[in-house]
Each structure stands twice: as structure tokens, then as C-alpha cells.
């Protein structure tokens, strides 16, 4: 699996973006990375996929140090994929099919295999009907799904999703959540960064809290969101289920369905 060991990353102008970060993806199946804007989430992701090279410390993949040679990186990225926040910046073709096929063709896969994978990926994100539409006619949510499909097609073991629900309406958010659950069901590991604490709380099982490039805290979802100082340190809010627990003394539930199911017990 993938992890960082004392990862420090400085920009060219010496500002520290990440400092002694230890993140281990083994710890959860859907891992949440939370922190305010500019806390270093995206920089961390870029270190994980070998786009940025750590200034100090390292990234380990299956126990081995990641090597920054072209060949090694190609292999790494067959195992580790990333979907960036803005779909417009990762879609290069105006034909949806060609765009989802892009990475596969770069790997030199046979056209038959490419086709199978493209359709599978489009099916997973429920976008099979978009195949023949030009990208510039797609809505933001549709583009987002196409961007996710391009990475799914690679069939990586790990997928990083940077703000997968930013700018989407509640219905689209649900669709993305379904896709994430589907990816997990296929046995892949998912890492999500998001500002939506309710979303993170409901789907992640392990959380890292980041601020100013430092990991302020980590832990299983329910535990970490109970630690006020850590959240405050990162200017974050608790999910509403946690706030209810804190303010009203009712038990902490992972989902609202759980709360509803146990409501009678609470009332008594």
C-alpha cells in the first residue's frame, strides 16, 4: 500500500507546503483528508502520485521508496490514479470516448481492451449516454463524471479524489457518493479531500486533519470528529450528527438513518 514517511515539501520559493506528514492509506478503505483551503491537501495528493518530489522524507509504495524515473512513475500511475477538482482541466478531447481512452492508449493497450474498459468506466459513472456528445455541451456534473471515468478506466488500486463534490447540486452529490461506494465495492482504496464535513463523515472510515501543511490529527471517523481542539485548529466544523451528539448528549451515530432507527431509545 501507499504511505508517506515524514514527508516535507517546499515550493521553489521555500514556503513550506507540507511538513513531516505521515499518511498511511492502509488505515482505511475510504480515507478523508480534511483541512481549510490552502492547507496542503492537493500538494499531498500530487506527492502521492509522483508529480511533486518530496523535499524531505519519502513516499512508499508497497514498502518500496517511490523512484522518480519515468518508467517507475508510469507503473506507479497504473496503480494510483487521481481526479482533480476542475474537470475542465483534465479533459483534453471533445469526444468523450477519446478522452476516457486517452490514458489507456498511452499505455499501448489494444483497442479492444480499450473499448471494454472505456465502456465499463462510463457505466460505473452512469455516463454511457454521453459517449457521443461533445464535451462542450456537457454540464459541469457530467464533465465531472467523465473525468472520474477516465481514471476508473485505468483500473488503479487507489484513487484520489480532490473535492469530488465541489460545485455540484445535492442530487449530483448523491450520484458521486454512489460512484465512490461502487469503487470501494470493487476493492479499490479511495482517498477524498472535501470541505463538506457531512459527506466526509458519512462515507469515510479514517480521517486525516491537515492545516498549514501539518497533520493535526488522525483517527477513525467517529473519534476524530469528537476532538474539538483538532477541528478548531484546522478551522473546521463538526458534522451535524456530531454536533447533535455534543450538544444534546444523544449517542453518536454514523448516519442519520441510524439516528432515526434509534430515536425511540433516545426519547425514553
Amino acid at each position, binding site marked *: 500500500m501507499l504511505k508517506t514517511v515524514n514527508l516535507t515539501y517546499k515550493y521553489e520559493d521555500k514556503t513550506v507546503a507540507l511538513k513531516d506528514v505521515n499518511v498511511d492509506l492502509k488505515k482505511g478503505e475510504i480515507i478523508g483528508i480534511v483541512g481549510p483551503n490552502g492547507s496542503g491537501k492537493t500538494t499531498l495528493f500530487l506527492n502521492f502520485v509522483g*508529480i511533486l518530489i518530496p523535499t524531505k522524507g519519502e513516499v512508499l509504495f508497497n514498502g518500496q521508496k517511490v523512484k522518480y524515473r519515468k518508467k517507475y512513475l508510469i507503473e506507479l500511475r497504473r496503480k494510483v490514479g487521481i481526479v482533480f477538482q476542475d474537470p475542465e482541466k483534465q479533459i483534453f478531447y471533445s469526444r468523450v470516448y477519446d478522452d476516457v481512452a486517452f490514458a489507456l492508449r498511452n499505455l499501448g493497450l489494444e483497442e479492444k481492451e480499450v473499448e471494454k474498459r472505456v465502456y465499463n468506466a462510463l457505466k460505473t459513472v452512469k455516463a454511457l449516454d454521453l459517449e457521443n456528445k461533445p464535451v462542450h455541451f456537457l454540464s459541469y456534473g457530467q464533465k465531472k463524471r467523465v473525468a472520474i471515468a477516465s481514471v476508473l478506466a485505468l483500473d488503479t488500486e487507489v484513487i484520489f479524489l480532490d473535492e469530488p463534490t465541489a460545485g455540484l447540486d445535492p442530487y449530483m452529490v448523491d450520484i458521486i457518493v454512489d460512484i465512490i461506494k461502487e469503487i470501494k465495492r470493487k476493492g479499490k482504496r479511495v482517498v477524498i479531500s472535501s470541505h463538506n464535513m457531512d459527506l466526509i463523515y458519512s462515507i469515510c472510515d479514517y480521517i486525516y486533519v491537515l492545516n498549514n501543511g501539518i497533520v493535526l490529527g488522525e483517527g477513525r471517523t467517529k473519534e476524530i470528529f469528537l476532538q474539538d481542539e483538532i477541528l478548531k485548529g484546522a478551522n473546521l466544523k463538526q458534522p451535524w450528527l456530531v454536533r447533535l451528539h455534543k450538544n444534546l448528549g444523544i449517542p453518536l451515530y454514523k448516519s442519520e438513518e441510524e439516528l432515526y432507527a434509534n430515536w425511540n431509545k433516545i426519547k425514553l
Partner: protein
Amino acid sequence: MLIIDKYAYINKLKEVNPFTKVIFYIVALAVALFSNNLYIWTGIVIAMSILIVVIARIPLTIYLKILTVPLLFLVFGSFAVLFSIDIDKNNFIFSLKVINFYIGITEISLNNTFMLFMRSISTITSTFFLILTTPINDLIYVLKLIRLPDIFIEIIVLTYRFIFIFLKECKEIYTAQQLRFGYVEFKNSLNSISSLVACLFIRVMKRYEEMKIALEVKGYNGKFHM
């Protein structure tokens, strides 16, 4: 946003094989360009208009609207061809004296202008047929068939994608400026349009940096496959 592009994807002839359409277009264009026959030109104009409006179902209003741009050009551009200047009045079939010379229309220029007008309008309607019924993505497929160099096609593919991103950005910046009175008079209009372009340029370059990362992640190795 680009109305021609929009209809290229939703017209009723979209599904016709693009190669067939391109061949048909080239033949029509060649006939329109090389012939000198009024009937042939009229025939082409009528045939293309029927194909566009009746068969492909492009709304007549839209068709006429996009036709007005070249028509205006044609009308005004033809003045220079139509009128001549001479000191001898007898060369003209119609003329007016201005100070010491005559401005007028000769029989040849009248004929030339008319022929020019007809040739233009028949090639224009031919081109309109192609661009209103064939999406760029299909044309790119044809370019591949005729084995145009890859780099050429790849840059066309990418440019086509970027045009829409930048147009949208441009429009949004323009609207924001307009709402803040950026275009109320000549001087501030010029300043605003300049800052729009500068702003767009900065964004474009930033986007390039970000897209390079996306390219690398996707394992780009120097070729945009299709």
C-alpha cells in the same frame, strides 16, 4: 455559444457518413468555383438551401441570420468592383460627374459584379451545408482518413476543445466588466477590453501549467491518440 457548431450536432443530416458529406461538398464547391454558368450557380444555391433548411432541419431564421454576415460583405464589398473612375464618360453605361472625372458602372463591371456575386453565394451556401450538418469531430475523422499529418490533426483536436473553454471564460469576464460599467465610453472600453485579454492570457497560461500535470498523470508520451 457558437450557433453553427450547435446545429452541426443536432441537425437531421448529422448521422450521414461525414466522408460522403465532405466528398459531396468538395464536388459542389469545385463546380461553384469553376463554372461560369448562372443556372448552375442558382441551382447550387437552391439545392443547398433545401438541403440545409428542409432536409437537415436547420430553422430558416437561423440559416438566414448566419447568411446575413457574408451577404452584407458581398453587397458592400462589391461596390469597389462595380464602380470605376474614368475621365471618359463614354466607357460607362451609367455615370456621374465628380469635379473633373466620372464615377460610373461599365457593362463589364456590372457583369463581373453579378458573376462574382453569384459565384460567392453558391460557394457560401455549399460551405454552409458542410458546416451546418457536419460536426467538427466528424470532420476530424475525415482528416484522419485522408492521412493529414498527425501533429496537424492533434493540434486541431486540442484547439477545438480549448476554444470553448476560453470563449466561456471570455464571456464571463466580459459580463462582469460590463456590469461594472467597463464599456460605457470609448476610453474605458479600450482599457477594459485590454484588461480582459490580459486577464484571459494569465488564466490561459495558468491553465497550461495545471493541464501539464493532468497530462503527466495520464501517462502522456508525446502523442494524442484518436
